[in-house]
């Protein structure tokens, strides 16, 4: 193996695991934000449960790990992927940078869209617009992205109405503890499903790179160390916890009570399981955000903060193109030479360090994750005083 290829393979493996880690702490909120907001679970307990379930999930299934791009990046006439290890590396850089920027702003955005965006940008620059299957982009990314929050949101809204009607606005004895238990169970299902789907994407990236570098035979599945490393990276990322995003999802969109948390997590789990089982996986992030808006609309007098929801929607809109632009720039530099490749890695690491430094000035952690809710309306404040 020549030096450039060796350096590329090592960089892809390292950056893929870094992406997996950011994926974990970006998406902790998906499963656990409502449980933390309603007090069903303590913040640290919640993220550790989610982390362990992510690790377990990574070992359960490796069936989609064999396709990296879900039909979004085409294969050439001989059936090989049109994307090279250097371009995969550039795509990962785009995905990591965008995931961290959105994390800094506390925006729940789809890690999968960031990964696809980075890869699409790198592929366009390296192999041309023809390398992208645009019908794949529409059916696997755009339509699911529009439908996921709507379907989950409507289901969560109806669920909330049913729960509050049946239990007289949750005033029957033991209602709140009962809903806390139920919401923890459904949240755990979401975490497990997340581990089985998201860790596999990284396994796919690493495996395809190893195949392209002739380190392992074509058509073989991920090796054990790849499965283990990916499971640990996503599990660790989840357990360290993305409290920044958790605060947005659990507190800022709408105040969530345990019956609503139950309705939201049930709708989310049902949506994620039904969609991945019946053929097209939806973004966990978008499903959960939709559910939360739904439960806010489903409860009388509960306010949905549309400015927060709008900012999240804007983040979704920009995720794919922004990651694509970073991926394309990285691809341009990385495909020039080994030095260019290493330079991209160095710049990426520096960028990551800057974002973490900025974030540490306004930390969000287990201690203040439930603070910072938007001002309650004056009447409610008066009632509380």
């Amino acid at each position, binding site marked *: 193996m020549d030096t450039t290829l060796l350096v590329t393979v090592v960089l892809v493996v390292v950056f893929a695991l870094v992406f997996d880690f950011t994926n974990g702490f970006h998406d902790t909120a998906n499963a656990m934000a409502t449980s933390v907001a309603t007090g069903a679970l303590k913040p640290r307990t919640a993220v550790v449960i989610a982390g362990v379930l992510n690790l377990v*999930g990574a070992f*359960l*299934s490796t*069936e989609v790990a064999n396709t990296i791009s879900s039909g979004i990046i085409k294969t050439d006439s001989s059936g090989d992927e049109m994307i090279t290890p250097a371009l995969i590396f550039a795509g990962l850089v785009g995905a990591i940078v965008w995931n961290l920027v959105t994390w800094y702003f506390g925006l729940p955005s789809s890690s999968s869209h960031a990964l696809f965006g980075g890869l699409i940008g790198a592929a366009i620059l390296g192999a041309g617009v023809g390398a992208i299957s*645009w*019908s794949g982009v*529409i*059916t696997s990314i755009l*339509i699911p992205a529009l*439908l996921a929050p709507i*379907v*989950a949101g*409507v*289901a*969560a809204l*109806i*669920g*909330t109405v*049913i*729960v509050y009607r*049946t*239990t*007289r606005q949750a005033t*029957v*004895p*033991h*209602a709140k503890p*009962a*809903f806390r238990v*139920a919401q923890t*169970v*459904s949240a755990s*299902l979401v975490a*497990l*499903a997340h581990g*089985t789907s998201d860790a596999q994407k990284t396994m796919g990236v690493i495996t395809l790179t190893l195949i392209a570098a002739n380190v392992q035979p074509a058509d073989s599945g991920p090796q054990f160390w790849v499965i283990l490393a990916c499971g640990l990276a996503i599990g660790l990322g989840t357990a360290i916890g993305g409290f920044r995003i958790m605060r947005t999802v659990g507190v800022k969109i709408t105040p969530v009570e345990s*019956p609503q948390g*139950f*309705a939201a997590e*049930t*709708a989310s*789990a*049902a*949506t994620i*399981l*039904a*969609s991945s*089982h*019946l*053929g*097209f996986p939806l973004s966990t992030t978008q499903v959960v955000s939709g559910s939360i808006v739904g439960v806010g609309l489903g409860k009388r007098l509960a306010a949905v903060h549309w400015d927060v929801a709008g900012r999240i929607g804007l983040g979704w809109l920009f995720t794919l193109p922004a990651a694509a632009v970073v991926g394309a720039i990285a691809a341009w530099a990385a495909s020039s030479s080994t030095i260019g490749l290493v330079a991209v890695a160095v710049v990426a690491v520096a960028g990551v360090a800057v974002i973490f430094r900025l974030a540490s000035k306004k930390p969000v952690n287990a201690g203040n994750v439930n603070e910072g809710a938007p001002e309650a309306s004056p009447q409610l404040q008066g009632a509380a005083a």
Partner: protein
Amino acid sequence: MIEIDWSKFAVVAGVVLLASVVLTAFYSGGVRLLETAGATSTAARIGAYACFAVCVAAVLFGLWVIVPQFH
């Protein structure tokens, strides 16, 4: 022309709505029945446990869907 299989999306939407309605109705129904049973009614208590059993079955089914080794 891009072929889009809308029926798949419709099936998912239908399943999701049905699952959410059934689960929230049975679980909160169980909670409500437990309150009624608080006095003396054995029937209400049995009804409540039956409701919770439906929800437990749904969770087990969810696990079955997630874990590919089961199917």
